C-alpha cells in the first residue's frame, strides 16, 4: 500500500486537539469574562490645577521632586491623553514621576458643537499659552519643558516657534512636520480629503468617522486579526484586562473642532506649510528657525500613521544646535505602551532633560525670570526646586556650572540619529 501524499490523519488529529483546546479555552474564558476585571485607565493620582472651557490641566506630583523645571505634556486632539497612563507598569507618567520629574498634562476634553470655531491659534496661543503662563507663575519660572505627542507635537512646535522665550527644552514624539510624503496611507488619503466640506457638514469632525478611517488603514489586522488574537487569549485574565484597556482608550475619542480640523488638513497635509516656514497661526508666521532650544525628536520605524519620513526633517529645519533624532523599532502607539519601549522612551527623556538642566545651571530659570515669575517668587507661592540627585550628571552640574548659561558641548550639537533596538510593533 502506497504512502498518502497528504498526512490527512495528522491534520485530523490536530483539528481534534485544537477543537478540544478551544472548548477548554471557552470554559476558562467564561470564568474570566464573567468575573471581576481590572480595566481602569489612569491609575496614577493627579490634581486638576487649571481649567478653561472644556480644557483641564492635570498635575502629577512625584514623591521627591528632582528637577527644577516641570514638564508639560501636550497630547493630540485625536484620542485622549490617558494613553500615557494606561496601566500600572506601562505608564509613561509613572516613569517620569519615579525619576522625580513633575508632570503637567493637558486634557483637551470633549469638544461640543460650540467649539466648532476653535482654530489652531485658539489651541496654541490661547489654551496652551494660558496653561504655560499658569505653570510659570505657579513655579516662579520663566520657562517650562515641553513635550508634544503627534498632533500635540505639532502644536508644541508651533508654540516653541512663536514663544521660544517660554520653552526650556522641547521633546517631540511621533510628530508629523513634513506632510509631503506618500509613505503612510493617511498622508495619501488626506491630500485629497474634502476637509472643508466635512467640517462644514459636521461642524466638528466626528471621532467615530475618524476611528473608522484608522481601522480602514489596515482592515485585515485591525478588524479581523486583532479580535482573532483576543479569542485565542481570552482565557488569560491579564491579556484580557490589557486588551480591554486598549479598546477603551482607542474608542474613547473626542470629536475634533471643525475649524482646527480644516486648518490642519489644508495647511499641513495638503500644503505642507509647516516645514516650509509658511504656516501662519494667529496672524504670525511660524518660522522653525525660531526654535533654538534643545530638541529631542522621537518617532517609530513602523509607524503607519506618522511614518519616519514625516518626522525626521524637523531637526534639520530648526534653529537649535542641540538636537537629536531617535527612531525606535516600533509603531505609533507602541512607543508609549510596549514593554520594551517603556525601558527606552521615558527614561531617555528624563535623562535628556536632567542633562540639559544640569548644563543650563540650576539658577538659570529663576534668575532670568519674567515679571510674573519674579513676582510669584516674591510672594513665596512656590519656590523653584533644584535638582537633588541625578547621579553623575548632577555632580557635573554641581561642580562649577551653577548659575551660568552654558552652550551645549560639541558632542551633542547637530542632529544625531540613534537607533533603538526595541522590536515591539504596533
Amino acid at each position, binding site marked *: 500500500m502506497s504512502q498518502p501524499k497528504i498526512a490527512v490523519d495528522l*491534520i485530523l488529529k*490536530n483539528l481534534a486537539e485544537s477543537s478540544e483546546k478551544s472548548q477548554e479555552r471557552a470554559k476558562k474564558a467564561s470564568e474570566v469574562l464573567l468575573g471581576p476585571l481590572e480595566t481602569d485607565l489612569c491609575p496614577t493620582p493627579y490634581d486638576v490645577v487649571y481649567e478653561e472651557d472644556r480644557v483641564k490641566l492635570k498635575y502629577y506630583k512625584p514623591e521627591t521632586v528632582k528637577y527644577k523645571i516641570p514638564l508639560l505634556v501636550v497630547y493630540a486632539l485625536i484620542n485622549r491623553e490617558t494613553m500615557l497612563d494606561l496601566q500600572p507598569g506601562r505608564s509613561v507618567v509613572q516613569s517620569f514621576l519615579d525619576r522625580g520629574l513633575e508632570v503637567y498634562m493637558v486634557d483637551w476634553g470633549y469638544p461640543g458643537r460650540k467649539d466648532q*470655531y476653535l482654530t489652531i491659534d485658539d489651541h496654541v496661543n490661547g489654551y496652551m499659552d494660558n496653561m504655560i503662563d499658569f505653570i510659570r507663575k505657579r513655579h516662579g519660572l520663566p520657562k517650562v519643558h515641553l513635550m508634544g505627542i503627534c498632533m500635540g507635537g505639532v502644536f508644541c512646535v508651533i508654540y516653541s516657534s512663536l514663544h521660544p522665550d517660554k520653552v526650556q527644552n522641547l521633546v517631540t514624539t511621533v510628530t508629523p512636520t513634513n506632510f509631503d510624503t506618500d509613505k503612510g496611507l493617511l498622508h495619501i488619503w488626506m491630500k*485629497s480629503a*474634502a476637509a472643508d466640506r*466635512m467640517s*462644514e457638514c459636521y461642524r466638528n469632525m466626528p471621532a467615530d468617522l475618524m476611528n473608522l478611517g484608522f481601522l480602514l488603514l489596515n482592515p485585515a*489586522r485591525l478588524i479581523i486579526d486583532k479580535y482573532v488574537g483576543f479569542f485565542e487569549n481570552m482565557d488569560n485574565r491579564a491579556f484580557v484586562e490589557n486588551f480591554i484597556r486598549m479598546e477603551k482608550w482607542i474608542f474613547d475619542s473626542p470629536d475634533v473642532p471643525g475649524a482646527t480640523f480644516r486648518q490642519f488638513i489644508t495647511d499641513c497635509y495638503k500644503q505642507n506649510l509647516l516645514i516650509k516656514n509658511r504656516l501662519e497661526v494667529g496672524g504670525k508666521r511660524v518660522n522653525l528657525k525660531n526654535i533654538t532650544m534643545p530638541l529631542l525628536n522621537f518617532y517609530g520605524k513602523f509607524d503607519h500613521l506618522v511614518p519616519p519620513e514625516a518626522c525626521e526633517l524637523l531637526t534639520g529645519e530648526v534653529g537649535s544646535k542641540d538636537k537629536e533624532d531617535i527612531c525606535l523599532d516600533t509603531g505609533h502607539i507602541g512607543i508609549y505602551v510596549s514593554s520594551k519601549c517603556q525601558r527606552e522612551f521615558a527614561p531617555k527623556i528624563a535623562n535628556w532633560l536632567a542633562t540639559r538642566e544640569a548644563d543650563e545651571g540650576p539658577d538659570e530659570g529663576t534668575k532670568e525670570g519674567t515679571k510674573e515669575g519674579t*513676582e510669584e517668587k516674591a510672594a513665596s507661592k512656590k519656590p523653584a526646586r533644584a535638582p537633588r540627585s541625578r547621579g553623575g550628571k548632577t555632580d557635573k552640574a554641581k561642580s562649577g556650572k551653577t548659575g551660568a548659561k552654558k552652550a551645549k558641548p560639541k558632542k551633542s550639537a547637530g542632529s544625531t540619529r540613534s537607533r533603538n533596538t526595541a522590536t515591539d510593533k504596533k
Partner: protein
Amino acid sequence: MASDSEKSSPDMSRFITDWMKSFSDTMESMAATQARMFAFPADAEGKKAAETGKAAGKTSGKTAGEAAGDDNGRGTRKSWAAMGNTWQKMFSALMAPENLEANFKGAAAVPEVAMRLAQQTADAMMTLQTRWMERAAAIGQRTKAYNFENLDKEVFKSLREIYETEFQKYLNVPQLGLNRFYQERFNRFLDKMTLFQTTLSEFLQMFYIPIEKSAMVMQEKLEQMADKGDLKDDPQAFYRLWIKVLEGHYMNLLKSPEYLQTLHKTIESLVNYNQAREDFLQDIVRHLPVPTLKEMDELYKEIYLMKKQIRSLSKKVEGNQTL
C-alpha cells in the same frame, strides 16, 4: 357613423349619475354618524355644559349637549351634502354629450402615461437584470491576484446610472405653491439619501474584493501544497497565511486610485446626504419650540468671538497692570 364613445354614452352617463347619487348618500350618512359622535362633550367643560343645560333643555326636551350635537351634525351634514352635490354636478357636466368625447380622450391619455412610466421602470429593471446576469457569468472567470485595476463596479454603477437617468428627474421637478421650498428640501433629502446608498454599496463591494481575491490565492496555494505533499498539519498556519495574503491585498487596494476615488465619492455623498437631511429636519424643528441648529451655530459664533475679544482685552489689561 357614430363613434364607440357616442354609442356607449347614455349607459355611461346613467352609470355615473347613479354612482354619484350613491356617493352623496354615503357622504350624508357618514356626516350624520360623525355629528352624533361629536355630539358627546369630550372634556369636563362640555360635561358641565351638558349638566347645566339639562334643566334649561327640559322645556325643549333636549339637553345642551344634544342641542350642540344637533348643531354640529347639521353643519357637518350640510357641508358634506354640499360637497357631494358639487361632485355630482361636476360629473354631470363632464358626462354631458358635448363633453364626452374630450373626456374619453383625456381618460385614454391616463393609461398611456401610466404605460410609459411602467415601460421606463420595466426597461430599467431589464437593464439592471442584464448587468446582474453578466456579473453572475463573470463570477466563474479567474480574478487576477493583487490587481485592483478595472474593478468590476458595473453593477453599482448601473444602479446609480439608472437612478440618475430614470428616477432622479422626478425629484428635481420644480415645485409650486406655498410649500414649494419644503417639498424641494424633502425631495433633495430623498435624492441624496438614494445616491449615498448606491455609493456606499459601491464602496462596500470594493472592500469585499480583497476577501474574494485572497480566497482565490489560498485555493491556489493549497492546491500547490497538496501537489507537493507539504500540506500544513496546523490549522493556525492556514489562518496566518490567509491573513497575510488578505493584508497584502488590502494594502494594494487601499493605495489604488480606484479606491481613493470611491472613498472620496462615498464621503462626498455622505456629506451631501447629511446636509440634505439636516436642511429637511430644520423645517420640522422650526415648528417646535426649540432653537434650530443654524440659530445655535450663529449664537455659538457670537459667543466664541466675544470670548476671544474678552480674553485678548484681559491680557492687555493684565499686561498694563504689571508694567
